[in-house]
């Protein structure tokens, strides 16, 4: 594959070759001789993509000289790249004050759905994504992937120029080809042309495809969305005659039953759902109430970890359990054999008691039957219209089929030209759909995407996509609310928006990005448009609930094959890499997965019992075979994994992209088939000799009987609100050192462990805000990872079905900080407002502070993890927050309570001659948290939010017996198990 080699070959060697040619002793006779080399072309491509775009493919000397004369003479004389001269603004652009960031509202897409974002921009350079509080899917929160959007924007490996047959070409040439194509299509009515789109909710895209279809009536539109689940559509289509999308109202739900639904971690509404769910679990006094969550799940998820009762079952058994719960709900205790399925009647009683405030949530990956049963149960309970609404699907759009249908159409000859928009079917296709074979039969294959990915290598034309933060577009949220997507920056690498491409197909060749979106919203006048842009939300655009009636009888479950020695396989999207599209993001590769804490690779998850039965251990290689395909993967023993079920995560195993290639792991798409995209029976596992490195950031899972995460049931809390003190060692009160005094603020943080769902968004936000380096798999394996904030995950109880606890651990900012006493050079000091500050300039790296930190929250730059040289740092240095120092090797660093944000607010307050208001300083972790588990503020101020939180009876400090007096404290975790269900212990403070 010379094409693959080409990716990296635009490099120093080319430049060097060019320089040699230009400066060597051998005189060159003409500019042609010098310029007409492959090196030159590639160099020009990399260095001047904008000009290269205009270069005709076969070099025309005249044009070349016109465009490149100046640069070339420089190349011939002294150097190829002259240092850029920067001059200050002669005329200050409106609104830009150097050093002051601007914030723009936009929306980022998550599987085609929008989540509102407010993006921080420093001098025109987007550096940080925050949630948009006005947006229903964000409510001010973000997830880890949204945080990483700024990094992918500056990814140097993004596709930089259109490619024809793998060689750099101009966009003009592409348009020429498109014009030719459009001419032919106009005659044939679009015969033979197919579009392959991803799931999209963009009204503009829909309108454009609609008008394309009018223009070319025979144009066919296929949709390939590897992470989409069709069960809901199928179920609702059967129940209501048309597909509808359910919207859940967890804020109204008292009892929630999840049938394999990971509503906190998956799906376009997850941030809003997490917020609503956690809102009902904030207990501060004994009269407060809580919701109760039952989860039946087929692989451990953060939703299962948040459950009051959790049952892990093979994915194929969920149907039967759903049917049995429904039968019990309808017919009383005798109607079904619930206990034999491991479920208790108490659950049914609970549901019945909650009535319309109950909610049964079917898993998106489950079967249509499970969906139908869940909806029928909700209907019977009266929940429809209260905790559950149905809306018209925001992504609905007439579609001619999926990827398999497209391949069939190609093979049958009815499609000979395809335009792939965004997706990467060569990597993400089910293994029984031979995309390579089908696509190679095409006369024309055009690929539009951010990266030159697997599909791009096959395509005749590859067009670089504009990043979301570079594009004008529009998008709908999970509830139908529309947002206008506005660019933060001009396309860095000359990318084109999807709308521009569709417009070109329709004969509109030089359309402006914004001009293509604005007409969709023609009913908005200019002030309304501006307001929608500013707010990030189009007012009143949420879909209205549809009134539905659900039949009680939804049929019987498909008979489940009896349990054999064969295993079931369960596929899940990697929570960060999704279908592999984020595989080139070092932030996401190195962000620990919420439960397994794996980084830089995936593993085949198996239960402890299955591991014992098959004689497997962590990291051991195993061959997994199904339907004639197989892959080798290291196994990872996962507490809480159902027995005889192997969970494989999608998104790894890509070899394209230098970051993606660094990571370990396997490509699970190999085992995935079109008929069983999410789970299937009949997996054969054969142990292999040898093992592979599986990198995890947490090696010990038990609390060892220590009172680390203190927890109690709601009943126990009501009896003893101060349960966190029970059995905990007393906190000492004396100290050799005098107490600090605070004239101004005394910052503090409270973290509610009942609200924390362990989604890890805060860690990603912290990384983005504080310029935290990624270290790569080798360094991460050595224990050199740099995250200032970590989410500790502990298991308690039986290893097969443990209770899971999450505990975010930032710096505790101790009053009597052990680190401060031992630093010989005053590099870690106590500030006037209570922070435990780290002075990078003073640090010489004795590492005594980390040695003496009982919380081990300090991180050390063991090597040079950040590039300081301007030339070799590449575009990714632009993502750095200019308010935070970038650390070099040999210095210690740690959580600062986002001191730069504190300073910014203090400066503003001082200018305005007032005190800093309560809640004015928001730390990055706090801002990202979907469940608002983190509260930050001034402890000196009576009645501040954080003081109120810390006054709760179940507030405790981690390891307080060490007399460190942390400023970060926790609210003990309160769960709400059903007293009628055995197996849940009562009050406990340490380990279960």
């Amino acid at each position, binding site marked *: 594959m010379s094409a693959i080699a080409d990716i990296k070959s635009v490099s120093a060697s080319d430049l060097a070759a060019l320089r040699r040619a230009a400066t060597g002793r051998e005189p060159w006779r003409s500019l042609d001789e010098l310029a007409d080399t492959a090196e030159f072309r590639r160099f020009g491509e990399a260095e001047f993509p904008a000009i290269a775009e205009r270069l005709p493919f076969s070099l025309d000397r005249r044009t070349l000289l016109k465009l490149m004369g100046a640069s070339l003479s420089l190349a011939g004389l002294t150097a190829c790249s002259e240092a850029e001269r920067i001059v200050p603004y002669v005329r200050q652009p409106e609104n830009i004050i150097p050093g002051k960031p601007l914030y723009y509202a936009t929306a980022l897409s998550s599987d085609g759905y929008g989540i509102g974002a407010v993006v921080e921009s420093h001098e025109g350079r987007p550096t940080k994504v925050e949630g948009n509080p006005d947006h229903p899917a964000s409510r001010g929160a973000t997830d880890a992937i949204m945080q990483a959007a700024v990094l992918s924007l500056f990814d140097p490996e993004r596709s930089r120029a259109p490619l024809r047959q793998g060689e750099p070409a101009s966009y003009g040439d592409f348009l020429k080809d498109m014009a030719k194509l459009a001419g032919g299509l106009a005659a044939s009515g679009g015969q033979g042309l197919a579009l392959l789109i991803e799931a999209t909710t963009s009204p503009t895209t829909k309108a454009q495809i609609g008008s394309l279809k009018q223009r070319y009536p025979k144009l066919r539109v296929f949709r390939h969305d590897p992470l989409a689940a069709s069960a809901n559509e199928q179920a609702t289509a059967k129940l209501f005659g048309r597909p509808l999308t359910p919207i859940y109202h967890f804020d109204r739900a008292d009892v929630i039953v999840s049938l394999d639904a990971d509503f906190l971690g998956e799906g376009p509404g997850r941030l809003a759902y997490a917020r609503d769910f956690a809102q009902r679990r904030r207990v501060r006094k004994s009269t407060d109430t809580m919701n109760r969550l039952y989860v039946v799940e087929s692989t451990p998820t953060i939703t299962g970890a948040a459950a009051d009762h959790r049952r892990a079952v093979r994915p194929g058994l969920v149907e039967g359990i759903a049917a049995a719960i429904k039968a019990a709900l309808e017919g009383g205790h005798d109607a079904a054999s619930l206990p034999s399925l491991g479920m208790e009647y108490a659950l049914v009683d609970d549901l019945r008691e909650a009535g319309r405030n109950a909610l049964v949530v079917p898993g998106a990956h489950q079967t249509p039957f499970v969906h139908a049963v869940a909806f029928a149960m909700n209907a019977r309970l009266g929940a429809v219209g209260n905790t559950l609404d149905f809306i018209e699907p925001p992504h609905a759009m007439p579609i001619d089929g999926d990827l398999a249908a497209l391949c069939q159409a190609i093979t049958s000859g009815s499609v000979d030209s395809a335009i792939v928009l965004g997706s990467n079917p060569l990597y993400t296709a089910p293994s029984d759909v031979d995309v390579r074979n089908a696509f190679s039969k095409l006369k024309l294959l055009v690929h539009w995407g951010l990266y030159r990915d697997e599909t791009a290598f096959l395509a005749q034309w590859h067009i670089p996509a504009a990043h979301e933060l570079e594009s004008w577009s529009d998008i709908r949220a999970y509830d139908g609310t529309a947002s206008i997507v506005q660019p933060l920056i001009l396309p860095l690498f000359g990318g084109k928006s999807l709308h521009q491409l569709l417009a070109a197909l329709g004969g509109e060749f030089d359309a402006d990005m914004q001009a293509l979106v604005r007409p969709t919203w023609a009913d908005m006048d200019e002030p309304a448009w501006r307001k929608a842009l500013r707010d990030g939300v189009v007012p009143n655009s949420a879909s209205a609930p549809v009134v539905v009636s659900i039949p009680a009888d939804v049929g019987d479950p498909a008979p489940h094959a009896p349990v054999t020695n064969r295993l079931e396989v369960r596929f899940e999207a990697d929570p960060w890499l999704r279908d592999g599209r984020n595989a080139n993001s070092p932030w996401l590769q190195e962000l620990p997965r919420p439960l397994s804490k794996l980084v830089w690779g995936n593993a085949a998850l198996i239960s402890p019992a299955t591991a014992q039965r098959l004689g497997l251990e962590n990291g051991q290689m195993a061959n997994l075979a199904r339907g004639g395909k197989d892959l080798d993967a290291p196994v990872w023993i996962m507490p809480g994994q159902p027995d005889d079920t192997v969970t494989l995560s999608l998104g790894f195993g890509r070899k394209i992209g230098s970051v993606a290639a660094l990571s370990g792991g396997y490509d699970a798409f190999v085992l995935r088939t079109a008929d069983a995209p999410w789970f299937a029976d009949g997996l054969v596992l054969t142990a292999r000799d040898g093992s592979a490195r599986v990198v995890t950031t947490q*090696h010990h899972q038990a609390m060892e009987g*220590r009172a680390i995460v203190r927890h109690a049931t709601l009943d126990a809390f009501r009896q003893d609100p101060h349960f966190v003190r029970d059995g905990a060692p007393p906190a000492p009160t004396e100290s050799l050192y005098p107490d600090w005094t605070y004239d101004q603020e005394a910052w503090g943080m409270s973290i509610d462990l009942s609200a924390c769902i362990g989604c890890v968004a805060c860690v990603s936000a912290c990384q983005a805000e504080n310029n935290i380096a990624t270290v790569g798999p080798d360094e991460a394996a*050595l224990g050199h990872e740099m995250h200032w904030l970590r989410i500790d995950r502990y298991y308690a109880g039986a290893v097969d079905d443990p209770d899971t606890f999450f505990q975010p*651990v930032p710096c505790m900012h101790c009053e009597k900080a052990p680190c401060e*006493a031992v630093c*010989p050079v005053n590099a870690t000091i106590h500030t006037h407002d209570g922070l435990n500050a780290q002075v990078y300039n003073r*640090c010489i790296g*004795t590492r005594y502070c980390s040695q003496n930190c009982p919380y*081990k929250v300090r991180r050390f730059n063991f*090597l040079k993890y950040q590039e300081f040289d301007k030339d070799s740092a590449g575009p990714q240095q632009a993502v750095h927050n200019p308010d935070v120092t970038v650390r070099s090797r040999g210095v210690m660093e740690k959580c600062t309570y986002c001191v730069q944000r504190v300073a910014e607010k203090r400066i503003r307050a001082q200018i305005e001659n007032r005190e800093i208001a309560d809640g004015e300083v928001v730390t990055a972790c706090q801002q990202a948290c979907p469940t608002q588990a983190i509260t930050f503020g001034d402890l000196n101020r009576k009645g501040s939010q954080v003081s109120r939180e810390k006054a709760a009876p179940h507030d405790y400090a981690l390891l307080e017996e060490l007399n460190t007096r942390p400023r970060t404290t926790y609210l003990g975790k309160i769960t709400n198990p059903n007293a009628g269900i055995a197996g849940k212990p009562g009050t406990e403070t340490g380990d279960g």
Partner: protein
Amino acid sequence: MAEAVAVTAGKAQPQAPVLRGRHDFPEISGRISAIVLQGKLPRFFWAAFFVCFAFVLLFLYSITYLISVGVGAYGVNIPVVWGTMISSFVWWIGIGHAGTLISAVLLLLRQPWRASINRFAEAMTLFAVAMAGLYPILHLGRPWFFYWLLPLPNTHMHWPQWRSPLVWDFAAISTYASVSLLFWYMGLLPDLGVLRDRARSRAGQLFYGILALGWRGSAYHWARYRTVYFLMAALATPLVVSVHSIVALDFTYAITPGYHSTIFPPYFVAGALLSGFAMVLTIAIPLRWAFAVEDLITLRHMENAAKLMIAAGMIVIYGYASEAFFAWYSGQPYERAMMAQRAVGPYAPLFWIMLFCNCIVLQLLWLRRVRLNMPVLFSIALVINIGMWLERYVIVVTGPSRDYLPSSWGEQSLTWLDFGILFGSIGTFFALVFLFIRILPAITIFEVEELVDEKSGAA
């Protein structure tokens, strides 16, 4: 074999003599200075030196690599941020103890047997402290700023942070190094005078003449020499205790389980003496054999060193026991868990090897036959050297690897660089010892002459 005779003869006598055979002054000064002045050393000497020199090159390469790449190149991580740089540092400091003890403490106690071995023991101390002094600097993330530990006026406008034991440590080690150097040089003066007088080449005369600082051996010189030498000895004696106690405070001061223990200062001092005497034997046994000075450095010296080893070793064993006891007695789950993890956790093999070396093998020294058998004694000294290195490594790594929050538990792994620097420093140490033997008298001429004088006077 003369040795064997001495052993059998020793049964009748209570102790082997400090000097064996008949000697006179010219013979003593001639023999000792000939090692330096004759200029021709046996071939094996240079062969061994070049082996050491290869390790010096390894040391230089490793240090260069470490400084240019960063401390991540050796096996430290979070949570175990201290590694071999600290354990080897403590080990070298410990080795550097025996010299001062022999020269200063035994001088004040007027132990005649120190005379033949104090010179090279002091040299050993200096070289060991030199090696030890490098480690904390190599340990730093930014070694080029090590001088920020000094109370110098600097651009940061602040003093060192006096509460940190590392500042005390820095002061203690530099004091110890300077006092040891002065004491050693002071002791060398009369012998440098002898070498100057005996040197035949002009260069030798100049070299030793300058170093001798005009020593003429007059009665005034001797009187002042004795006063100063004894004063220096009185100064150096408390340092034997203080320097390692302060090194121990680096650990004791921390709240890390396994570090936070009041037993550390005395226990570290005892450990230092144990490893120091083990190193004295490691050097003395081959030295006396190779240069045929078995009549000057006699079995008496060897046996006394072995006796001191077992004395110090038993205190170390008591230290181990009390460390374990106090972990249990504290009632702190963290201390108890850490101590249990030391015995069964990931570093357990090292822990058990350490106990075998320092507790079990040590007991052989109770037997006089073993103390007088040089090959066996040499092997025991080597085993104890290894055991003492392991002791320091086990203390440094097990605490942080199993501290308060199990989520952070983890182990560090050793890389080639850990070994490169450790073996490089050992090689450099021995290369320095070889150079010392070549350039300066390894046995104190005038003190042995004194012994001869006393012996003939007694006879």
